């Protein structure tokens, strides 16, 4: 595990250094250094350094670090989601409970590896009790819309995100004590796919996948990004219990889910009339702008590994 961790950190630092150098050369050569695209590129790379550093710190603290990190990511994502939805004064207790009760309980279930309750706590108990509390407040104005938005918020921002640290609870024979590397594999492949789709899209993008949802998603970006990220997954198979072929297939599936996550997030943003979820991550937008692909990919990755690789 030590060897893989060292390789990983050296590899990521190498890629980011390379990206920083390329961006510095592009900026130096550009006729206009204040070009918004270049400014944004530099901000994005700088933010990547910070994000990689934060994840590396959580990595060092193992299960505790990962659980806390992703609980905080859920907090930021939930805050962005709820801010954009229609809420009324009578929703106060439910909204408060989402942050102060549901997040801690869900991550406590992850931490104690209580799989049975972890998978149904939100889709069964919160699903039924949240609208009940809302109904008890007696305010029926736009009731279904408010309740639906609350359900979406906890499903995306808490339930789906919590599947990332939940990877640590899986028992893969012959892979004991190395589950942190599964998280590294998932994040690198999904985020790598986002970056590669962005690069392929900027370089070759012509044909839009869903022009009425997102102008920046092109077929060229999608195919180039997902194909190269699947190869990246195969190359990273040494981190995982998968063979290179299996790693490529798993990477392909999670990248596809990641793409769909970005598409759904774009549709929600468009419906609400905003460009970004927030401003937490300089150059990227909000937490959900960065994590939308991970939100969709994490549960699927979790269940693929659980079904095919655990006993």
């Amino acid at each position, binding site marked *: 595990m030590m060897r893989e961790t060292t390789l990983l950190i050296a590899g990521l630092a190498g890629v980011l250094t390379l990206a920083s150098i390329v961006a510095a050369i592009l900026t130096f050569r550009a006729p206009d250094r204040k070009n918004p695209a270049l400014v944004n590129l530099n901000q994005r790379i700088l933010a990547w350094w910070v994000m990689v550093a934060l994840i590396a710190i959580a990595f060092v603290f193992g299960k505790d670090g990962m659980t806390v990190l992703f609980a905080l990511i859920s907090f930021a994502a939930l*805050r962005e989601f709820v801010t954009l939805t229609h809420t009324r004064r009578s929703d*106060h207790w439910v909204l408060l409970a989402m942050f102060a009760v549901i997040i801690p309980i869900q991550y406590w279930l992850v931490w104690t590896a209580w799989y049975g309750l972890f998978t149904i706590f939100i889709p069964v108990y919160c699903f039924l009790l949240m609208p009940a509390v809302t109904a008890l407040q007696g305010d029926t104005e736009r009731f279904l819309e408010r309740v639906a938005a609350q359900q979406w918020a906890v499903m995306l921002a808490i339930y789906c995100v919590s599947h990332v640290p939940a990877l640590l609870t899986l028992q893969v024979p012959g892979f004991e004590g190395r589950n942190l590397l599964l998280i590294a594999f998932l994040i690198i492949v999904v985020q790598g796919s986002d970056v590669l789709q962005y690069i392929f899209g900027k370089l070759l993008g012509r044909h839009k996948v869903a022009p009425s949802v997102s102008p920046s998603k092109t077929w060229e970006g999608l195919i180039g990004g997902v194909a190269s990220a699947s190869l990246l997954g195969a190359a990273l198979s040494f981190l995982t219990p998968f063979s290179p072929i299996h790693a490529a297939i798993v990477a392909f599936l999670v990248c596809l889910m990641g793409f769909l996550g970005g598409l759904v997030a774009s549709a929600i943003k468009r419906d609400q009339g905003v460009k970004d979820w927030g401003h937490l991550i300089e150059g990227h937008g909000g937490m959900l702008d960065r994590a939308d692909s991970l939100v969709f990919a994490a549960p699927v990755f979790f269940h693929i590994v659980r079904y095919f690789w655990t006993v």
Partner: protein
Amino acid sequence: MSAARAIRHHLLRPAASVGLSALAWAITGVRPIWMGSEPSERQRIYFANHASHGDFILLSACLPESERQRTRAVAAGDYWGKSRLRRFIAEDMLSSVLINRNWTEPKDNPINAMLAVLDQGDSLILFPEGTRNMGDEPLMRFRSGLYNLAIMRPDVELVPCWIENMSRVLPKGHFLPVPLLCRVVFGPPVAVERGEDRHDFLKRAHAALLALKPRLKGDRR
């Protein structure tokens, strides 16, 4: 200066100011949007919409630290002066200016307390609606204090500030905040024009503040 007062002045207030601003950021991720005015050392009256007890903490969290130290909110004495705890929070921690909203004698006119603060060189945060807005209209009618201060201290800049979302974070009747993203939009300063009467100025100031309210699709904020 007595020891207790010195501690209050040099330790408690700066600590409360930094601590509350950090707390406001942790809960709301608050960001200032300077649209037509910039952070400045000029003496100012920040006037804002009011729907939550958290409003002035949010607004002062958007100011540079040195400005925050000398910017004091005007708060209702009949609410904040009611118990020792409230008075401690309002006066000692937040150095608010408590005013009496139900005055009868001319000497009790709250404008005197505000003028005294301005004459010390401090800036003010003022909610010209006079009370928290609980209705459906976005901004209630302004009381005349803003006009009177503008006439009596014409050198002080009047900056409209639209506080967004705070009424959802901490609505009336609740004391636990829901974490939601907030922004404070600072607009271009307004001043009383030559010959402008009270009614016209207040209407114009009201419109200047309302113009900062973000217009997104429908009311889906």
